[in-house]
C-alpha cells in the first residue's frame, strides 16, 4: 500500500490542541503492515498521545532498527525527522542523536527480534547509559518480516503458525530493563489503548530512559492459540496493575482522587500520572517489588501490565557527563575552536 498517498482531507470539526494542530497533523503515511497488526495500534496510540499532550511534532526524532516494528515510525508524526537505521542498532543511533541535541524528544521504536536478539547488547547498554528517551518494543514473539520464525521473547512451549515450538527460555524485556537501571518501565498491550496512551504520554514526559514493552500480536504469523503473544492469550491472561491516567502539565487537575485509593506521580515537567488502584497495593517505585510482581504473574501464565517501575531521581547521560546547556549541534566555531594561540602552547609542550 506504500504507493497510495494518504488524502490530506481534514474534517472541519476536527478538534485542535493547544498548538492549533489536529490529530491528523500527528499522523504519518498509510501503513503497509498487515490488516489487524498490533503495531498499527501502537502508531495510533502514539498519534493520540502526542496530539493530546500538544507535543510539537518537529521537536521529536523517531529512530528505529529493522523489521516490521521498525516500520512504525513511518506511520506517525510525519513532521518529525525519522531514522530507520540497521537491524538491532537503533540504540546506538539514538544515543548519538541524543548526545548531539539534548533538547528534542526521542522516540525509539524496536521489536523483539531487533532488541532481544540481534540488538540485545545495544539495548542493555542504552539502558545503562540512561539516555533521555522513550523506547518502545513492539513485542510479537515472532519474526514477521521473514515469515514467522520464533523470537527470543516467545515463551517456552509457544508455537509458531508452522508448528515450531520454542524450546528455550524467553527474555523478558521489562525485567531486563528494570535490572539494568531503566528509570521508567511499563508493559502494555497494543489492543488496550486506554492503558497504552497515558503510558506513552508519561514515558515522553519522564526525564530519563523510559521503556514500554508492548505486546503487539502478529496477526499473520503468531496469532495462534499456542502463542503467548497472540490476541487470545494476551486478553485472557492480561493483568492490569492499575488504570493509568496522564494529566499534562498545563491541565488543571480538577478531578479529585481518593488518596486512599489512588496514587499520583508528578513527573519532571510537572505533568502527573494517576494510578487508580485495582485491587492491589502496588508500589511502582520499588524495584524489588516490581521484579517480584512480574515474575509472580509470569509463573501463573499471566502478563503483568501497567507502569511497573518508576524512579525519578536518576540523572541522564548529559547530567552524568556534565555537558553544556546548549545542544552540541548549536555550538559555533567560536564555541569549539580554541584558536592558534593555544596551539602555540601545545607545540611548545612537544619540544
Amino acid at each position: 500500500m506504500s504507493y497510495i498517498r494518504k488524502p490530506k482531507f481534514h474534517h472541519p470539526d476536527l478538534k485542535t490542541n493547544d498548538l492549533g494542530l489536529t490529530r491528523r497533523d500527528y499522523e504519518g503515511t498509510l501503513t503497509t503492515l498487515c490488516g489487524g497488526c498490533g503495531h498499527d495500534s501502537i502508531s495510533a496510540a502514539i498519534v493520540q498521545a502526542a496530539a493530546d499532550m500538544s507535543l510539537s511534532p518537529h521537536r521529536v526524532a523517531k529512530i528505529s532498527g529493522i523489521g516490521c516494528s521498525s516500520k512504525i515510525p513511518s506511520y506517525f508524526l510525519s513532521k518529525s525527522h525519522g531514522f530507520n537505521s540497521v537491524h538491532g542498532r537503533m540504540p546506538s543511533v539514538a544515543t548519538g542523536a541524543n548526545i548531539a541535541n539534548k533538547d528534542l524528544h526521542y522516540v525509539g521504536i524496536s521489536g523483539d527480534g531487533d532488541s532481544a536478539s540481534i540488538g540485545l547488547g545495544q539495548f542493555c547498554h542504552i539502558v545503562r547509559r540512561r539516555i533521555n528517551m522513550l523506547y518502545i518494543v513492539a513485542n510479537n514473539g515472532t519474526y514477521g518480516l521473514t515469515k514467522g520464525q520464533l523470537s527470543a521473547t516467545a515463551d517456552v512451549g509457544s508455537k509458531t503458525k508452522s508448528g515450531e515450538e520454542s524450546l528455550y527460555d524467553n527474555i523478558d524485556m521489562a525485567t531486563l530493563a528494570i535490572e539494568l537501571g531503566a528509570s521508567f518501565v511499563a508493559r502494555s498491550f497494543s489492543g488496550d489503548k486506554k492503558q497504552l496512551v497515558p503510558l506513552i504520554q508519561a514515558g515522553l514526559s519522564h526525564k530519563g530512559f523510559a521503556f514500554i514493552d508492548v505486546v503487539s500480536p502478529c496477526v499473520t504469523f503468531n496469532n495462534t492459540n499456542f502463542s503467548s503473544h497472540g490476541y487470545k492469550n494476551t486478553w485472557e491472561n492480561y493483568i492490569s496493575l492499575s488504570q493509568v491516567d496522564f494529566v499534562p502539565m498545563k491541565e488543571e487537575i480538577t478531578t479529585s482522587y481518593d488518596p486512599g485509593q489512588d496514587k499520583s506521580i508528578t513527573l519532571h515537567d510537572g505533568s502527573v500520572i494517576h494510578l487508580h488502584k485495582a485491587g492491589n497495593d502496588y508500589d511502582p517505585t520499588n524495584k524489588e517489588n516490581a521484579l517480584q510482581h512480574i515474575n509472580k504473574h509470569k509463573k501463573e501464565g499471566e502478563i503483568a501490565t501497567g507502569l511497573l517501575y518508576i524512579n525519578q531521581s536518576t540523572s541522564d547521560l548529559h547530567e552524568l557527563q556534565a555537558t553544556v546547556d546548549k545542544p552540541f549541534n548549536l555550538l559555533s566555531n567560536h564555541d569549539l575552536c580554541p584558536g592558534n594561540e593555544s596551539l602555540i602552547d601545545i607545540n611548545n609542550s612537544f619540544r
Partner: protein
Amino acid sequence: MKDLVSANKINTIPKINDFIVKFANVNGSGSASANNMFAKSIFRMGIPVSPHNIFPSNIQGLPTWYEVRVSEKGYLGRREGVDLMVAMNEQTIKSDIDSVLPGGFVLHDSSKPLSDELIRGDVHFLPIPLKDIVLKEFDKPSQRQLFKNIVYVGALSAFLDIDFEVLTKMISDQFRGKEKLISPNIHSLELGYQYASDNFKCPLPIKLKPSNKNENKILINGNTAIGVGCVYGGATVASWYPLTPSTSVVDAFDKYCKRLRIESGSGKNKFSIVQAEDEIAAIGMVIGASWNGARAFTATSGPGISLMQEFLGLAYFSEVPAVLFNIQRAGPSTGMPTRTQQGDLLSCAYASHGDTKHILLFPSNPKECFDFAADSFDIAERLQTPVIVLSDLELGMNEQISEPLEWDDNRRYDRGKVLNEEQLKSIERYGRYQDSDGDGIPYRTYPGTHPNKGSYFTRGSSHDANAAYTEDGDIYAEGMDRIALKFKTAIKYLPEPDISNIKKHKLGMIYLGTTTSAIQEVLDSLTKKGISLDTMRLRAFPFHLDVKEFIENHELLYVIEQNRDAQLKSLLKIECNALEEKMHSIRSYNGVLITAQKIETEILDSLKTSEKNKGISA
C-alpha cells in the same frame, strides 16, 4: 680506563649523528619512559631522530624493543642493523647481540657475567653492573627496577656525548610538581654517567654532535596530533571501543578537551566521550550524532573496521557524515596487533556490501594527522558521507619530528549544505535527495529545524529524491548514479597528491602514509648511482586526475606499500586503469616499517632484470 676500540682491534668506523641505538627490554619494566627520554634528548640537541617502538601485545614480561635512528641528513625511516644495542632482556639477548653490526657496541648488565656463547669477537662490549649499582643505591625493589633504566641512559650520555644538561632539564620538566622524584632520577643519571666515564674511553667513535636541524619542529606522535586536530576541527562527540593502536587518539582528544573545551563560568563540558560496548555501537553513535548536526568521530583499527561495515554502508547510502580514524595494524584477524601495516586500504575504500565507496585520507606525518583530522569533518559534512583517515601504528604511536601544528584563526568550519529555518521558509518543496546544484550533493536539514518543512525519513532502504521508500528500480539507479557523481565532485575537496615532477623522468614511485619516511633516502642513494625517479605521494582517495596523468606519463612505476597483496596497486588499477605491466610492486609486510634499503634493492634488481631482458630480446 679501557680504550675498547683500540684495545680490541675491531674496526669501528666513526659515525657522528648517523647510527642506530636499539634497546631490548622486558615490557612492563618501566623502560619506555627512560628510552623516550633518551630519544627526546637527541631531539633537543637539534639532531634529527626517529624512535620506533616494537612492542608486544602484552602487559608484562614479554620482549619489547625501542629502536632509535639518529640521522643528521634527516632520514627518519627504519634501517636494518644496530650500531649500539642496550641488551637488557635475557630472553632475547642472543639474537639481540647477533643483530649488532660488526664494529658495533653492546651495553649489557655485567652484574651477572655474560655466558661464553654470547661473546662475539667483532663487536665491543660495554659491561656495566647496573643491578649492583641500583642495589647499593636504592632500597625499594620498584625503585631499583625503574632507576636501572635511568642509569643506562646516564651511561649512554657519556658514551654518545649527550649534553648532560639536556637530560637533567628533561627530568625536571617531566617531574614538575613531583619534586621528590627529580633528585633520585638525576642521581641515577649521574651514576651511569660516572661509571661509563670512569671505566671506558668516552665518548665512543659513534657519537652525537649538537646540530640545528630541529628548529621550530616538534616531537609528537600521530595519534596525539589527531586528537588535537579533532578538538580544533570542532568535534563534540567521540564514541569508541578500546583497540590498539587507536586508543590513544581518544585519550588525546579527552586530554585536550579537558583543557580547551570547558565552558567558562559553568565548568561544563563542550564534548562527550562514550566508550561504546563494541565498534558497531561506536560508529552507530557517530552516525546518530552526525545526523543530528554534531561533529562526531570514532577511532579504531582493522577489527573495528570489519565490525563497522554495515553501518558504513548505511551512512554511504543514506548520506550521513561520519569521521573514522583507522590506525592500521597487521591483519588479517587479530594478526599482529602491535605491529604496523597498510593492510586496510581495500577494505576501507569499498567497505560494506553493495556498491559503496568511501573517502580516504592518507596522512604521512603528525602535522598532516592534525590537518587531516580537522579537515575530515569539513569534508564529511560537505560531502555527507563517511571519511576514513588511514593512519597506522607506526605513525600513530611513535614520536616523530614534525612541523609545528598551525591553525588559521580566520578559518570557519564548512558545515556543508544544511538548510536552516529561514532557508526552509523560502523553499516551496524540500527534497532531501534532490540534486539542486548538479554536483551530486543534496541539501540536508537537522531534526527540529522547522515546524512543517524539511523533515524527512533517513533510511538504508531504497528511496527517491524526497527520501520516500521506493522499490522502483529506475529511481533507485538514479539515486545511485547521483551518489557516484557526488564522488566525482568529492575530488576537489580532497588534498591533492604530492608530486615531485611530472614527465621529468621515465621512472616513478607511488606511495602513501608511513612509506614516505624511506623515500628521500632511496632517492639520494639512487641519484648517486645515476638513477633518477619522479615521486607521487597519494594523500586521498578517490584519486585526483593528476594521479592518472602521473601514471600515464611514466614508463615504469614502483608502487611501494606495506601489505602482502599490493592493495594500492590494485586500487590504482581499478580506479585509474593503470596497466599491470608498468606497475612494479614493492611490498613489505613483516609488521615493521619498510626500509629504504629494501626499496632500493628491489628497484636496482628490477632495473637489472629489465636490462637483461632487453639484451635477450635485442
